């Protein structure tokens, strides 16, 4: 079962529009919380990750959740679609971009999230993204998984990076994986270690990811509940 990029795009658009209608049509709420996206073409090449994800889907159908609440008007359907279709690269990028939007950093004229912005991120939104990551990685990816790893690392960021596979070695030299250029991160649910994604920028310090993992939304298990 193969999906072309065009198909994925179509799915995303479809999913978005149905979400809009979900808010406008009360009866829509009674419908199942996902739509079934049928492939229209199955020809062109796809990324290996997408291929993997797609072929693992036994019934050859990808269900994209549509009940994706946001406290700040953020549209998570693209993320849901990317994850559902196995485009982890795009999903990862979307997640980073989303943090800038929902933390208010953009409103402050910045293109990066400072750790002090994290408290402004609505729990609702983090929970929505987390459920998506969790769902489509079968519990392997997501901030909550990283939080668990962080706790195991006793506050040592280097240990944490090793645990979630953000480091690699060149000969005897350990270093962080490269992201730009040819990314060395593993965009593959099966092959990646637990907690490997999503990738949060530490280019401006580790306090951002630490703050994210300390966000009150992770204080209890409420985020798991589907709305």
């Amino acid at each position, binding site marked *: 079962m193969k999906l072309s990029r065009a198909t994925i795009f179509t799915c995303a658009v479809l999913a978005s529009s149905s979400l809009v209608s979900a808010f406008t049509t009360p009866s829509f709420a009674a419908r199942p919380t996902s739509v079934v996206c049928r492939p229209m073409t199955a020809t062109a090449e796809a990324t290996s990750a997408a291929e993997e994800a797609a072929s693992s889907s036994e019934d050859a159908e990808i269900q994209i959740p549509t009940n994706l609440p946001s406290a700040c008007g953020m549209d998570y359907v693209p993320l849901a679609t990317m994850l559902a279709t196995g485009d982890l690269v795009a999903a990862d990028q979307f997640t980073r971009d989303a943090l*800038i939007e929902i933390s208010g950093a953009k409103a402050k004229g910045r*293109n990066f999230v400072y750790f002090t912005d994290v408290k402004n991120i609505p729990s609702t939104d983090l929970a929505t993204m987390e459920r998506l990551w969790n769902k489509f990685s079968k519990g392997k990816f997501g901030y909550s998984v990283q939080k668990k790893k962080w706790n195991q690392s006793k506050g040592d960021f280097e240990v944490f990076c090793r645990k979630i596979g953000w480091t690699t070695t060149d000969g005897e030299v350990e270093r*962080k994986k490269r992201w730009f250029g040819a990314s060395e991160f593993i965009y593959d649910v099966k092959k990646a270690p637990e907690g490997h994604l999503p990738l949060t920028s530490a280019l*401006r*310090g580790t306090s951002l990811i630490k703050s994210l993992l300390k966000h009150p939304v992770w204080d209890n298990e409420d985020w798991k509940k589907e709305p």
Partner: protein
Amino acid sequence: MVHFRTAAIALLAMGATTAWQPSSTSTGTSFAGLSKASFRSKSALPMVVTDPTTTSGPMAGAFTANNADKRRVIPEDPRGRPTMKVVYVVLESQYQSSMTAAVKRINAGSDNMAVECVGYLLEELRNNDAFEQFKKDVNEADIFIGSLIFVQELAEKVVEVVQPRRDQLDAVLIFPSMPEVMRLNKVGSFTMKNLGQSKSVISDFMKKKKQEDGSSFEEGMLKLLRTLPKVLKFLPSDKAADARTFMMSFQYWLGGSPENLESLLTMVGQDYVAPIKASMEGKEKVVAAEPVLLPDKAIWHPVAPSIVFENNQKYFEWYNNEFCPDAGIDTKTAPTIGIILQKSHINTKDDTHYVSLISELESRGSRVVAIYSGGLDFSGPVEEYFYDASGKPIVDTVINLTGFALVGGPASQDHKKAAAVLKRLNRPYMCAVPLVFQSFEEWQSSELGLHPIQVALQVSLPEIDGAIEPIIFAGREGATGRSVPLADRVNLLADRALKWANLRIKPAAEKKIAVTIFSFPPDKGNVGTAAYLDVFDSIKAVLAELKKQGYDIGDAPDTKEQIMEAVLNDPEARISSPELNVAYRMSTDEYYELTPYAKDLEENWGPAPGNLNSDGQNLVVYGKQFGNVFIGVQPSFGYEGDPMRLLFAKSASPHHGFAAYYTYLEKIFKADAVLHFGTHGSLEFMPGKQVGMSGTCYPDRLISSLPSAYLYAANNPSEATIAKRRSYSATVSYLTPPAENAGLYKGLKELKELISSYQGLRENEGRGPAIVNSILSTAYTCNLDKDVELPNLETYDSAKDTPENRDKLVGAVYSQIMQIESRLLPCGLHTVGVPPTAEEAIATLVNIAQLDRPEDKIESLPRAIAASIGRDINDIYRGNNNGVLDDVELNAKIVDASRAAVRALVMQSTDSNGRVKEVKSVFDDLSGFFGKLTGAKKPYTQAIINAGFPQIDESRLENLMGYLEFCLKQIVANNELGGIMELLNGDFLMPAPGGDPIRNPDVLPTGRNMHALDPSSIPTKAAVDVSEDVVRKLLERLKQDNGGNYPESIAFTLWGTDNIKTYGESLAQVLALVGVRPVADSLGRVNKVELIPLEELGRPRIDVVVSCSGVFRDLFINQMNLMDRGIKMAAEADEPLEMNFVRKHALDQAKELGVSLRDAACRVFSNSAGSYSANVGLAIENGGWESENQLQEQFLTRKGFAFNADKPGMMEQQAELFKTALKTVDCTFQNLDSSEISITDVSHYYDSDPTKVVQGLRDDKKKPMALMADTTTANAQVRTLAETVRLDARTKLLNPKFYEGMLSTGYEGVREIQKRLRNTMGWSATAGEVDNFVFEDANAVFIEDREMQQRLLDTNPNAFRDMVTTFLEANGRGYWETSEENIERLQELYAEVEDRIEGV
């Protein structure tokens, strides 16, 4: 033209990224035309902190392996526009991303031109491939841009390539660089061709200006530059227009943003590049925007609503009222960290490494004030922004992230001003280093660590300002040149800065201090070892001071003995039990839990607890806690019990016990600071990089976040520097014990008396010859026949000899015993905070007075005295050395007169206790004034007159005596306890040079943070002159002993401290032998050598094998480079082989080893990076070696790493090359630079002596001659090693003044005596140059004498046992032949001591 000249001077003076405000309109906080977000890349950048372009793996020999091609920008679609080709070379990689962005903007947006652009980082030009590519690119270029080209050899490369192309290039824009590069500048008619032709004019002018008004010269120039372009704007001539273009370009360049660089390129392109000019004919020129610049200096914050704040009131209004509450920072209690930034990173928006540190600090609840300066003088913004309105400092710790010196950056520093500014602020001052010349991975995989040029510029120079903790915090990303933070380093930096701040904030009563003492070499008798320090007495003094300042020292006893007993267990423990007091038992679970790197130690030591510092179940921490003070014993290196480990120590790690000790301090005792007590322990010598630790280097892992103060002997700046750089310690210097003249004793004393009587009776034909006969026999008794050629005792009768010969004989003996008598001898041990007595001060001052100081216009006292009788002191020295009786006598008389004069000076200020409390000037008292009127002499003049020199000219002494008075003040000034407390209280500790107080009295007063010197400043001109003299003497001596032939090769040992103290004399000796001369660049830095032509040299080039100590390698790797290049130059010079032994040997080696001549000419060796010493000393100290062969193998293995200027990033194992080079050595040579660290005082000298190694390697198995240069006195000498060992034994080990002095300090004293004995035996083992009588006499003094034997045994039984063992070992190994009786006594004694120690 005068404008250009001045502008050029200004550029030079400013050095690096300076900027100024272009006009009043663009001041303020707006960043016109450049919105805050516009230059951020498209989204939150990824976390990746590595360099995506570099090839992986270890560096391929070069320091950096980046490829400029990755930075090449080619217009995708020129759309028929003329293309301008730009090549640029920069030191600072942050310009790359801006240049790339600017070029892309033009290619996308301009209608008139397209740009093809390629950039090089200066350092890349070392690489041959890159250099060839560079040439090619320049040959095709239209525009060349260079900035901050300040590395001489690379500057030459740039000139080599650009100069021939200069006429074809449409424009050459060079921003601050070396003068020869600046001269390439060309913008139309504007040139700087005449710049620096008379380079002395500029440098003289700069020097003069600097003297006149300190570094404000730079500020003045900045002002001029600000106004210059505006003035030029109104000048109509073409020349002025071209000059204006240059000035505008410079402004754009300094602005650094893509917009500014776009304007620069557009402006230059349309005005100077012909095809563009042509295509624009008839079109309107694009009017370049005014340069957009940030204010000159300001406060910056990554998330502030405005980009910068120009005063701190505005900043704190926003920060305290808006930011902090939002970030959860409590402004009332939060510590505040001041940060100093480089403006170019803010201009170019290359700031993520800055943001990273700020966010780590703020997320830890701390406030931050980050400031920058446009110029290179950061002192202005420090003074302006780090104080509140009432003049109180706002900050608790300062971190300088530029890595540069505070005043003057990489160009011309003003360390005095920097230290004064920092002292006024009085806060700990850390200087962290961003990697510039290496990618992150290159640094990470390098054993050397930080690039040597950066070490010189960004570690050595800041240290002179008083900076501490050179932590690497950022790397560079190869493709874009952007800076990226190193997460773990930034976290460490934040933790450490806050711990320093905490020392200021926390009340004294709550602060926990861990005093760490050493046990080195590891043995019970050695607990509390430190060079020349009475450790427990000093601890007592520190405890008292802590108590006085409100620290809780619990029930700490107040006597030295009780403190010692508490740590060493109970009073009987020293004799009956090997156990130290156990402070804490750490279970292995706890150990693994708290020590993150514990698993890594298992490779070497197996699972914890192991058997060191272990009771079998737990890891044991030795020491004793008193209140909030813990006195702990640093565990040993871990070599004892397994000496063979020495051979494989390269990959060693600390043992579990060692790690547990530091884990205990940090996490269980929870120390706020650790005080390392004395010179020196093992922490800083643990495996890791040389400089620029990573998170896997052991010194870094061990010290972790603990602030460390380290008491360090003032005469050892080189090792202190290792402690500072590798274990992040701030040093507090302490005085070495005052040196006195060794004096004479026993037979030597009799000899002197005999000689005195001979002087009165030499004309008496009856008594004279009889006295000479007695002198002769006594001289034999004293074994002086080894040093002086004496006639046969049996057959000689002086009555039959001529009076001249008698004089000659007496003169020779006299000269010899005078050498012994006047040799300096450190007496006893120093106690922290106790200044020397008047008597002790006199001895030091006499020696200070002995040296000429032409740079200060001070003439030596002996010279002034000699002049009063119409003699030149150098003549007298020469006569003295040759045994001319009259000159020996006269020299002795001058020495006495000097002593009398200095005594008279000091006595003025001495109180009834024999101490100098307050120095009373002989110059300002009334009696002096009246004295002048009445014609009375100063006391010191009178003393000289009384000593037999009535013609002494008082006015000639004035300068010197004034200087001596100043030195006396420094000697007795006491800041040692003060210095310790300043660190523990979180103050700024003033920096001071380390070294020999006699050569450089600026070392005094002690109690300051010691630094080495600017490595690029050596060898100095004066050092080169002195070294040429020593080399001449050395070659004379060798020729004389070698049938008139020059030696072909000399093996050298180079020491760090030696070269610091002498400003590179021994390094210069190496160059002199080979016949090359160091050349200083126009900034006075030595980074080039040139061959002295054979005609001028007048002798063959002597080959050398240079063995550098590990410390020398750490401090002076650029100088190793210099030597290697010089030697290779000599090897490659096409000269007759009989006149060039370097070439002769290298050709042979090349053939034998099948390598190139150049590779064969490797002569500069050391340890592998991060490892120190041959460990021969350690082997000898613990006796665990079987044959000398084993020691020699160890030497060859550990010291056989070659430095190669062609592959400067690594130390390459070259054992074969080392061996073949050593094989041809005729002479081994070392320098002795100070009397207080002489050849039997420390193990280092014999540890690296290759004498027997060479003997083993030579085809003829002949032992090479072993020589030592002694430059400890004005009358420099070259002696044989055997002579030196004898001299040392006579003045120390065998001298009652020495051993009684040591014994008066008790416990430590016995150990000191034993150390000398053991080191003496070391010379037997490595050089075979110890006379039998030395051991024989030592045995007589310490063993045969029952009373002495008993005293030693009672005072420190463990050390005494070692003495007995050493004697037995010396005999057993065949170094000492003695009677059966002596051996039996020793064996019995051994059994007896053993029993006592074991408590049987």
